[in-house]
């Protein structure tokens, strides 16, 4: 890591934020369009990664928060791990009961 910033250091705050937004949007598109429940879980992980990138970018650029952004990203990661564990458990149970993990067939709650 360089201790002094090069004069042409180009990565501004906005760049990181746009990358985070892009990852979030891509993940959302996946979560809204995939049928396989496990794929949807994966897409949600991508969304969470977008959020983490945003947090870390803020931690890099906003003074006075003392790496708080990174710590928040760690909490996001923790929650993601918990979510994935429970999500996979639910998917396995659904599969056992209905022999499918396609979300458009899991419509017991249809009104």
């Amino acid at each position, binding site marked *: *890591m360089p201790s*002094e*910033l*090069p004069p*042409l*250091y*180009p*990565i*501004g*705050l*906005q760049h*990181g934020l746009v*990358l985070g*937004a*892009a*990852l*979030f*949007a891509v*993940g959302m*598109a*996946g979560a*809204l*369009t*995939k*049928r*396989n429940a496990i*794929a949807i879980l*994966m*897409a949600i*992980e*991508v969304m969470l*990664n977008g959020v*983490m*990138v945003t947090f*870390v970018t803020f*931690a*890099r*650029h906003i*003074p006075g928060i*003392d790496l*708080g952004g*990174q*710590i928040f990203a*760690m909490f996001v*990661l*923790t*929650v993601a*791990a*918990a979510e*994935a*564990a*429970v999500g*996979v*458990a*639910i998917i*396995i*149970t659904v*599969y*056992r009961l209905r022999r499918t*993990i396609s979300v458009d067939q899991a419509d017991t709650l249809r009104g």
Partner: protein
Amino acid sequence: MLIPEGALIAVTFYVLGVLAIAGGVGLILARRIFHSALFLVLTLVSVAGVFVILGADFLAAVQVLVYVGAITVLLLFGIMLTPQTVQLPDIASPGQAISGALVAAALFVVTVAVVATTAWPRAAPLPLADQPTTNTIAFNLFNTYVLPFEIASILLLVAMIGAIVIAREE
């Protein structure tokens, strides 16, 4: 060095960013769930690289360990335990696909618009310390953020027990 260090870093950032997004897109477009998982790994590793560039070295390590090492493996277990007998196109109906993409795009546009128009306090990044961030993170985690930390541990415990209870055979 023909190329200045700053430019190298910038190029690395953009390449990693594009790779991360490409991984996400590939995840969506892949026909087989296993390929989707590989694309996810690509995204996660790329994001870890971005973390390194943004000065979050400890977080990058955790990202690789937890996400690539644990969550992905968990998802692969999920894939294995739910045999993918029918290989239909995994994308939903065209209407759903288009509307989902539209909403995602709209959200992206709105977010970028906000990012572009907000008067940010400063454009230049903060100076980075020489030593790794581990020390600072650990200190803050056990001082300022000790309560969320403990709650997070309880959350993990609950999730673990919950997952076992849900997935257990009757």
